[in-house]
């Protein structure tokens, strides 16, 4: 949302007005509890931003919804959301949006919880009945948040409404349910003789798990960078193929998607494409950079690179079948390839995918000894060699994928920045550095 459209602004204003309506009714009951919870929520949000936790403190909000009447519960969300640091502009609009959205959500949750007699169940710690209103409140909270979020996505980013809603609701339900259980525990202990001190203890395991999840995302980003460094080590030696690995990774991924492979296998095939030439590290630099024709002896040395590559990556267990792809990506269907001269289905599927992607990118990119061919000519050449050199299934998949999405190779080999981790609930993860 760089420039926020007018209708999105109007939408936010409506939600904010609704939030104000939720807050308006004057209540006399226990303002100190609302103030205490609000301070707790605000403090947690600040701490989370400071130490880069990955999480929003829904347990505190939901505990408020289980403990307090709806207007007071809605108030709990306000200070934390209004004071929370926001990275992207426009800052105040985002803060107001977040506060209004949470206030409406908590208000609705608290309302449902109260209507089902949840507050009495919490005071009497009437288990298992207390789980019923709490579960209903969690559902409502989740539903309201995803409805509002879907609305803003549809208005500001023009994402189709139905898709936005379904994805948001299903993804947020499980985490919010866990937060709801923690909130219920907080509420029960808060009302018990042991008081708020015991309720605070509930937050500690949650905080630890958020902290560990943040560490996990950091380590994951570091791992991506390490893979990239592995590729850059090849680029140091073999300059004119710069970007080739990334593009082969992209083409392999497109083929895998087109063949209907699941997400984890697609990801593995992307790594297979990225790392397929890593064995070139083992080939003397002079040979790789040689301009003239190669002698048979030199050719034999270069043809060792799949085995070198396999030797390097075989210790990385998460790569799975990508390791076989690294070893066999120069095999041909008719058995005339190397290193083992495998035929047909003896060649692992992953290697057949990478072989097609590799040949396609080699033809469509400029090398020192020839100019790039257009995509159409390259595809025609692939189809000509299908059956003898390439698996026709993979070639057709590539042709179909390209006709659907086009070929927009992103040259990222020169970039050294780490990709941001996937955005989590309410985009908090996106707020790193």
């Amino acid at each position: 949302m760089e420039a926020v459209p007018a209708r999105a602004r109007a939408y936010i204003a409506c939600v904010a007005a609704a939030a104000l309506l939720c807050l308006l009714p004057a209540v006399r009951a226990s303002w100190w509890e609302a103030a205490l919870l609000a301070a707790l929520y605000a403090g947690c949000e600040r701490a989370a931003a400071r130490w880069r936790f990955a999480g929003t403190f829904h347990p505190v909000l939901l505990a408020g919804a289980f403990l307090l009447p709806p207007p007071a519960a809605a108030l709990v969300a306000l200070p934390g959301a209004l004071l929370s640091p926001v990275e992207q502009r426009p800052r105040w609009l985002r803060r107001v949006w977040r506060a209004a959205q949470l206030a409406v959500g908590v208000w609705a949750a608290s309302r449902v919880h109260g209507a089902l007699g949840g507050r009495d169940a919490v005071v009497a710690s009437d288990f298992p009945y207390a789980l019923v209103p709490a579960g209903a409140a969690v559902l409502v909270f989740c539903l309201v948040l995803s409805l509002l979020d879907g609305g803003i996505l549809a208005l500001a980013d023009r994402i189709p409404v139905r898709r936005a809603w379904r994805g948001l609701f299903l993804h947020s339900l499980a985490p919010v349910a866990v937060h709801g259980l923690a909130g219920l525990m907080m509420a029960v202990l808060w009302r018990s003789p042991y008081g708020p001190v015991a309720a605070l203890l509930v937050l500690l395991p949650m905080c630890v798990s958020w902290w560990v999840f943040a560490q996990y995302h950091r380590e994951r980003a570091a791992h991506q960078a390490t893979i990239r460094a592995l590729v850059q080590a090849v680029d140091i030696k073999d300059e004119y193929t710069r970007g080739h690995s990334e593009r082969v990774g992209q083409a392999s991924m497109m083929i895998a998607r087109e063949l209907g492979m699941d997400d984890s296998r697609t990801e593995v095939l992307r790594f297979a494409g990225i790392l397929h030439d890593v064995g070139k590290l083992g080939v003397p630099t002079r040979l790789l950079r040689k301009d003239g024709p190669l002698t048979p002896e030199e050719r034999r040395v270069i043809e060792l690179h799949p085995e070198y590559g396999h030797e390097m990556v075989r210790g990385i267990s998460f790569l799975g079948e990508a390791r076989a792809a690294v070893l066999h990506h120069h095999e041909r269907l008719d058995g005339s390839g190397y290193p083992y001269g495998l035929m047909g289905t003896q060649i692992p599927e992953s290697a057949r995918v990478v072989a097609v992607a590799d040949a396609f990118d080699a033809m469509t990119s400029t090398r020192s000894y020839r100019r790039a061919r257009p995509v159409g000519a390259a595809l025609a050449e692939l189809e000509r060699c299908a059956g003898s050199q390439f698996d026709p299934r993979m070639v057709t998949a590539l042709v179909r994928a390209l006709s659907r999405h086009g070929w927009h190779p992103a040259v990222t080999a020169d970039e050294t920045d780490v990709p941001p981790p996937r955005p989590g609930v309410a985009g908090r993860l996106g707020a790193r550095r």
Partner: protein
Amino acid sequence: MSGGQETGAVSKTSRRCSWLQVLVHSSAALLALGSLTCTLWTGLEEPGTALAFGVLVAVGELNRRSGPHVREAAPLGAAGALSYALLGENAGAPTHHGAVQVVTIVLAASLVGSVPHVGRGQGPTADQQARRMLTVGFAAVCFQPLYNQGTFAHWGGPAYALLLLALLSLTALCDAVLAAALAHSRTRWPFAPLLRDELRALLGIGSAVVATGAVMALAVAVAGLWALPVFSVPLLLTQLAVRRYAAVRATNRQTIASLARATEIAGYTPAGHARRVAALSREVGRDLGLTRPELAVLEYAALMHDIGQLSLVDPVPAGATADLPVAEQRRIALLGGAVVRQTGVDAAVAVVVERQADPCREQPTAARIVRAVNAYEEKARDAGPGGPLTALEELRLGTAGDYAPEVVEALARVLSRDCLTSAVTG
């Protein structure tokens, strides 16, 4: 040389430590046997509650995940056991089980829960079982007799909650000391850094276990046994997070090890060099009392210390950088640092790699270790049976400028220790 003295010191330590281990194991066994006999004699108080907590501990134990980097293998089991030790009421009615029953139930449940793991050969070690018994026994003996006498009857609610928390924190501290002592006796690494690592680990999943233990005891007092499944969820979430973190760490480690092997594949260094330097550097770092994060930086730096050679068009003969002119060594080190900076590992690793060729007075400790161990590895590698001793002697002679004396001495200690262990086991 001081070899004789060192050998004597090492064997003395090992004797004292195995004595400690025997003491811990036998007292845990005694406690378990005594409690079991007593409980069989008197019978169970409140069998329903005992069964519920037993099931919780057993389930936690079934979820056990073992591995070299796991700090708390079965957090749910530990939290369940501690909360049973500190349980004073059940849904408002006072309980009457004593410390003896607590130990018995936890013993039985953890034995039942570890059956499948034992079947797979990954059961809890004797050390872990002994620690579990002793810590639970400690918490229960501190709490149950006083509670059953009614000492806490007139305490207010919040004060009681804080009391439980304080007791559990004390128990966790004792457990950390015990764990460090046992690790010290097993591995003969220095005690202080081990204790520091254990205490630091308490802040992570350890604090989650302590908080959950206290909260469960309080929640069962308020809401009855229904609280147990509800209150296990956040801890399970923590456990999941810790596992995923451990998995991605392991993956990253493997990738870095592969990157380190790039120089070997490319023919710049002999096979296995990086791995050997990393393993030996870690041992030396441990001997010098580095903390766990420092050891991780040291290991990564040692794995990638030769990576700058990838930028050379022609390899150095046999990859032996220790005999090159200093200016050339520094150039390779700087090139290596530039590669390491792109890998996304801690920036401290790149600093160590960059400064491995500096004069030792200006180096950080990790760089000193990498430099000395690398030189030792290169010199001792092809020198035949007498190689290690000659290489050490050369390093000692070079200590004035190139190699830090304390690092060389630590290396000598580690090597003599390895000789001892191989003589004992082989």
